[in-house]
């Protein structure tokens, strides 16, 4: 039994094609089919099983729209699967859109306390982590300014620092390493290695296949919402590179 088990997970999104469905459109729809509500379904995930062991790092690779981000959001408990079962034995720290969710008018400090409490941390727990978070983000001297005055890079550093210091059992990382400069990327990798070395699990979504091979113990290749290959990162990446995998647009939330 790992720290996270996903069994038979499927996720369906209903996409409405009409931009608005106001009263006028609804009345027109009575007379003309052109105005009727058009919707179609997209299966972002189909019957996905994932096993994540304690202390393991798992890479998710695949083309855009293959369901990687949706899968990460289901692991985080933010999205509910349409069917299937999620069993989680621990806490999750999702790092999905770095810096998103910070309130621009609040100061760096206020945002840190708000963010950690979103994950259920009490004030004293955050007090104990605060200095390390600020030091890691290299934002000493800025924490009492509103986040709207931060550069994008500063906000991202703060977001990364908060998420990796939550001391959750599982860290979910979505493409954060594609942004930020080299020094920041290097620092993130070092920090993720520390998190892994401390016995916690990590799930990484990355287009940087080199990173997946170096960092992950295991990898899954997702194509059109299904896992088509799983196992040794080098083999999974090789398979992804060899096969011209078909692309299909899908939606993630």
């Amino acid at each position, binding site marked *: 039994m790992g720290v996270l088990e996903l069994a038979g997970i499927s996720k369906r999104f209903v996409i409405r094609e009409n931009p608005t469905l106001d009263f006028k459109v609804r009345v027109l729809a009575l007379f003309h089919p052109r105005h009727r509500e058009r919707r179609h379904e997209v299966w972002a995930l189909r019957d996905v099983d994932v096993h994540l062991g304690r202390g393991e790092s798992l890479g998710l690779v695949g083309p855009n729209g293959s369901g990687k981000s949706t899968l990460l959001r289901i692991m985080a408990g*933010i*999205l509910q699967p349409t069917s299937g079962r999620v069993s989680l034995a621990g806490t999750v720290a999702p790092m*999905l859109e770095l810096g998103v969710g910070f309130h621009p008018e609040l100061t760096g400090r206020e945002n840190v*306390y*708000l963010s950690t*409490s979103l994950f*259920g941390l009490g004030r004293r727990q955050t007090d104990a982590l605060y200095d390390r978070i600020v030091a890691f983000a290299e934002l000493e001297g800025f924490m009492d300014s509103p986040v709207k005055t931060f550069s994008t890079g500063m906000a991202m550093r703060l977001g990364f620092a908060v998420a990796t210091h939550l001391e959750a059992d599982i860290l979910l990382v979505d493409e954060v390493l594609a942004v930020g400069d080299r020094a920041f990327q290097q620092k993130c990798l070092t920090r993720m290695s520390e998190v892994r070395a401390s016995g916690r699990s990590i799930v990484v979504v990355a287009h940087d296949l080199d990173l997946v091979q170096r960092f992950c113990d295991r990898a899954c290749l997702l194509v059109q919402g299904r896992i088509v290959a799983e196992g040794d990162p080098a083999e999974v990446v090789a398979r992804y590179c060899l096969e011209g995998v078909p692309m299909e647009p899908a939606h993630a939330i």
Partner: protein
Amino acid sequence: MIRDLVRHRELIRNLVLKDLTLKYRGSILGVAWSLAHPALLLAVYTLAFRHVMKIPVPHYPYFLLVALLPWNFFATAVSAATGAIVFNGSLLRKAAFPREALPVASVLFVFAQLLLGLAVFLPAMALASGPGLTWTALLLLPLLLLHVLFTTGLALLLAALTTAWRDIAHLTEVGLVLVFWLTPIVYPVEMVPGFWRSALALSPPAAFAAAYQDVLFWGRVPAWTTAAATLTSTVAAMALGLVVFKTMSPTFVERV
């Protein structure tokens, strides 16, 4: 749900602090606005209803105040709750915290301002030229508790429904104005003609207004019908709000 909220009390506290901070940061009068706003309303309503409409109630400004302050809390909280989920998409997408925290925090934020108003106006009522307070003022505590729970129930309901039908926010705005004038707040219930007065017995806001006027202004224990109306409407609002919210909350992220 209660256990979830207790575990996330720090989140609720931070959300309330965030709203308070954002509301007053950068304004010169700051928190004083929370008092200036009802004071100005009070002045205008007193001018209109005592001096122009000649409503025959002694100490009219105090009569008005004891039901107007709680109404302002109720109306502001309910209308803010319609946006509690739909305007917080970025928080919903960030973590899987209990969604109830958002409408609960938005109600408590407004409630903090009611407490501030009461803390300033009640002593004035007891000391100055007012009608004075009696021991029944102690009943204010259970009454406030019921009122917060009633408001929270409606807030949960409206916050959830607005994610599916944005019209709810507009309906709520209009509905609140109608209900305000149909509720005996600026005029005493005795001025309402017989048939309509019995119809008012079915209105929860009217029951709450009557209860506040009883315990703070008239210095009497509310009639059992008033007490029963506040209690049953609180239980009903909470039950309905919780069921609807629980049912809809798994898909909030996909709707906002």
